[in-house]
C-alpha cells in the first residue's frame, strides 16, 4: 500500500505519531495472602497519525484508562512497545513536553491550594527560556499590555510581586494568556480553582495541558463529570483547538455519542483488547464487530418528527408488544472480570455468533474497507 523508500521508513511511518505494538499491562495485588493479577491490557496494537482525532471507547474493565496512563507516562508497560514519532518512548523531559493529558474529574485535577496561574504553570518547567520567550513574543505582538503584573490584586500581593523572578513572571503571563485560548478571562488567573464551576475547571485543565504546545493530547473522559449543556461547550472548544493547533487527539470515553461527534477514527476496546478500529463514519454506519454492533444498539435514541401536529396522540397509540418494550437491544450477560478473562476472544461469552472457533484468539485483521476487526465472524 505504501512505498518503501528507506529501510523501515516509508510515507506511512513518517506520518505516524504514535505506534503501539502488542502492549500488555498487568497489575498485581495481594489480597488475603493471595496474588491477584488484573490483566488490564492484553495485547493492544494501535497506530495514530499526526492530526488525527482518535476515540477510544469501551465499558468498564476494557483498559482504556490504563492505556491513557501508559501513553502519558504514568505507568510502565509489562510487555510490548510504544513508539512516539518512530522512536521508543523514554519519558524524558523532551518527551513529556510533547505529550499532555486532560483528566476526568475537574474537581480533583487541580491543586486547590494553588492559584490558577500556578496550576497552568506546572508543565512550563519543561520549556527552555528561549521557547518561553518565543511564545511571549507572539503574544506581545498582539496584546502589548497584557502582562501578569497588570491584573488587579490586593496590596499585600502587589508587594510580593517584587520578589518574583523574571522567569516566574514570564510563565505567569503566559499562563494568563492560555486562559484566553480556552475562553476564560485572563484576569481570572489569580483566582483559585474552587471558585470556578466544573466546566470552567475543566477548561483550566485544558489550558494547562496546552502550556507546552504538545503534539499529542490525551483526554481521559474529559466531559463525563459535567452537565450535558456544559459538555457541548467543552466539545466545541476541543474541536476548535484541534483545528487551530493541528493537535493529535486521543479521546477516551464511554459515551459513543460524543466520540462520534468529535473523532475521525474510533477504536473499540473490550477487556483489554481491541475489537474494532475503524474510521468514525464507517463504524457508526456499519459496525462489523458483534460487540460494536451491540454497543451502538444499546444506546437509547430519539425519534424525529417535524412539527407538533404530526406527533401521534397518546390515546390512539397502539399497545406496545411485550417483546421489545424499549427500543434498545439488550445484550445478555455481564462483562467478565479483568482478573479472569475468557480464553480466546473475550466477547465470546456474550456473543450471538460465538462458536468453538472463538476459543482461538482472533487476530486484529484488516478488512477490505481498511478497518481492523478482531473477529472470526465479522458482519
Amino acid at each position, binding site marked *: 500500500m505504501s512505498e518503501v523508500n528507506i529501510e523501515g521508513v516509508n510515507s506511512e511511518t513518517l506520518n505516524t505519531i504514535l505506534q503501539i505494538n502488542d502492549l500488555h499491562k498487568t497489575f498485581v495485588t495481594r489480597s488475603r495472602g493471595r496474588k491477584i493479577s488484573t490483566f488490564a491490557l492484553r495485547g493492544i496494537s494501535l497506530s495514530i497519525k499526526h492530526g488525527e482525532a482518535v476515540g477510544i471507547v469501551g465499558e468498564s474493565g476494557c483498559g482504556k484508562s490504563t492505556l491513557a496512563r501508559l501513553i502519558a507516562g504514568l505507568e510502565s508497560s509489562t510487555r510490548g512497545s510504544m513508539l512516539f514519532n518512530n522512536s521508543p518512548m523514554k519519558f524524558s523531559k523532551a518527551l513529556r513536553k510533547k505529550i499532555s493529558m486532560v483528566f476526568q474529574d475537574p474537581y480533583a485535577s487541580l491543586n486547590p491550594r494553588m492559584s490558577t496561574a500556578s496550576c497552568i504553570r506546572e508543565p512550563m518547567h519543561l520549556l527552555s527560556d528561549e521557547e518561553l520567550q518565543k511564545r511571549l513574543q507572539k503574544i506581545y505582538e498582539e496584546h502589548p499590555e497584557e502582562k501578569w503584573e497588570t491584573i488587579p490584586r490586593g496590596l499585600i500581593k502587589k508587594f510580593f510581586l517584587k520578589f518574583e523572578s523574571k522567569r516566574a513572571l514570564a510563565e505567569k503571563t503566559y499562563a494568563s494568556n492560555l486562559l484566553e485560548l480556552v475562553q476564560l478571562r485572563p484576569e481570572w488567573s489569580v483566582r483559585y480553582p474552587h471558585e470556578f464551576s466544573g466546566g470552567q475547571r475543566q477548561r483550566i485543565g485544558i489550558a494547562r495541558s496546552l502550556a507546552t504546545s504538545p503534539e499529542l493530547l490525551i483526554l481521559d473522559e474529559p466531559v463525563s463529570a459535567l452537565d450535558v449543556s456544559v459538555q457541548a461547550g467543552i466539545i466545541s472548544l476541543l474541536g476548535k483547538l484541534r483545528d487551530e493547533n493541528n493537535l493529535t487527539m486521543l479521546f477516551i470515553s464511554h459515551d459513543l455519542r460524543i466520540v462520534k461527534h468529535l473523532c475521525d477514527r474510533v477504536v473499540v476496546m473490550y477487556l483489554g483488547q481491541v475489537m474494532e478500529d475503524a474510521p468514525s463514519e464507517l463504524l457508526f454506519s456499519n459496525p462489523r464487530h458483534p460487540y460494536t454492533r451491540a454497543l451502538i444498539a444499546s444506546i437509547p435514541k430519539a425519534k424525529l418528527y417535524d412539527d407538533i401536529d404530526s*406527533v401521534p396522540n397518546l390515546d390512539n397509540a397502539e399497545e406496545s408488544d411485550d417483546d421489545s418494550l424499549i427500543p434498545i437491544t439488550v445484550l445478555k450477560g455481564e462483562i467478565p472480570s479483568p482478573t479472569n478473562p475468557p480464553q480466546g476472544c473475550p466477547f465470546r461469552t456474550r456473543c450471538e455468533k460465538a462458536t468453538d472457533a472463538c476459543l482461538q484468539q482472533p487476530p486484529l485483521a484488516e478488512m477490505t474497507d481498511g478497518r481492523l476487526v478482531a473477529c472470526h465472524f465479522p458482519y
Partner: protein
Amino acid sequence: MSETVLKLENLFVTYGKKKRKTYAVQDVSLELSKGETLGIVGESGCGKTTVAMAMMGLLDARTSVEGKLTILDKEYDLSKMSHKDWRKIRGEKIAMVFQDSLAALNPLKRIGEQIAEAIYVKDKMKKSEARERAIELLRLVEMPDADRRARQYPHECSGGMRQRAMIAMALANEPDVLICDEPTTALDVTVQAQILDLIKKLQVKMGMAMILVTHDLGVVSAVTDRVDVMYASKIVESGTTEHLMTCPSHPYTSDLLSAMPDINAPRGELHAIPGVPPTLNRQFEWCPYGQRCKFHTNECDEDMPDLVQIGENGIALCACVHPLLKIGSAEAR
C-alpha cells in the same frame, strides 16, 4: 381512561433558614396514571432528585416541605407527615431505587438478608420465609445464580447486579408506585440497557406506575411514556415523550436536545447553552430560563408563565411566553 395512581400538588421544598435559604423546588405538580412511566428530566441542581426524595419523605428533618401527595385516593399532607406515617406508606405504596447501589446497600449485610429485611419488617413474616421470598425476588429481577448471589456481600457483585438487588428490595412489598432516581447513570451502556429493559418488564408485570428521574434524554426517550422537564426548581414543560423528544415546545427542552449529540444525527455543531442556571436563593415569579433563552423579551420577566396546553392533540403543557412551533426553529408563537 386509566385511573390516577399518584398526584402531587404544589410541592415546595426549602432548605436553610433566614437569609441563606435555598428554594430547591417551587410549585411542582404532577400526576401519574396506572401503568404509566413518567420521566422527570433536568440537569444537576434543577431539583428533580429533591422532588423524588420529597415523595418518599427522605428529606432532612430541617427541610421545609409543603405540598399534598395523593396515592390511590388517600391524601397525605407532606408538611405534617411524621416518621410513623412515612413508614406506613414506604415500601407498600411507594418505593425507591437509588442511583448509587454501592452506597445504598449495607456493605456489612448479605444481599439476601437485606432484601429479606425489607419484607419481614413489614409483613411480619417469619424470617426464614422472608429469606425464601428474597431469593424469589432475585430470580424475578433476573439475577443469575440467585441462590449464590443472595449469600454474597454487595462489594462482591458488579454494578449491574447490585442495581438488580436494589430493584428487588424496592419491589419486595409490591408498591403501587416505583420511583427510580438515576438508576442507570453509574452503569455501563450495555448493562444500562439490561436494567432499563428489566424495569420496564417488571413494571408491566406488576402493574406499577413509575417515575424515572434522570438527566439522560436518551433513557427518557426509550423508557418513558410522559416527561416533565424541570429547570431551576420548576417544571417548564410536560408532555408525551414522543412529543417532547421530537418537537419540544419550550426553548430549554429544545436547547437541551440540540446540546446533546445524538447517535443517529449527522455530525454537526453542538450548541452549548450559554450561561448558568440561576441560583435558587429566592423565590421568583418570572421565567427562570429567560436570561439564557434565545427568544427572551421583557414579557418573560414579568410573570411566571403557567403550564398551558399547546397543540391540538396530546396533553402537552408548556410554561413559556414564546413556545416553539417547530423543532429547533427560529419561530415561536
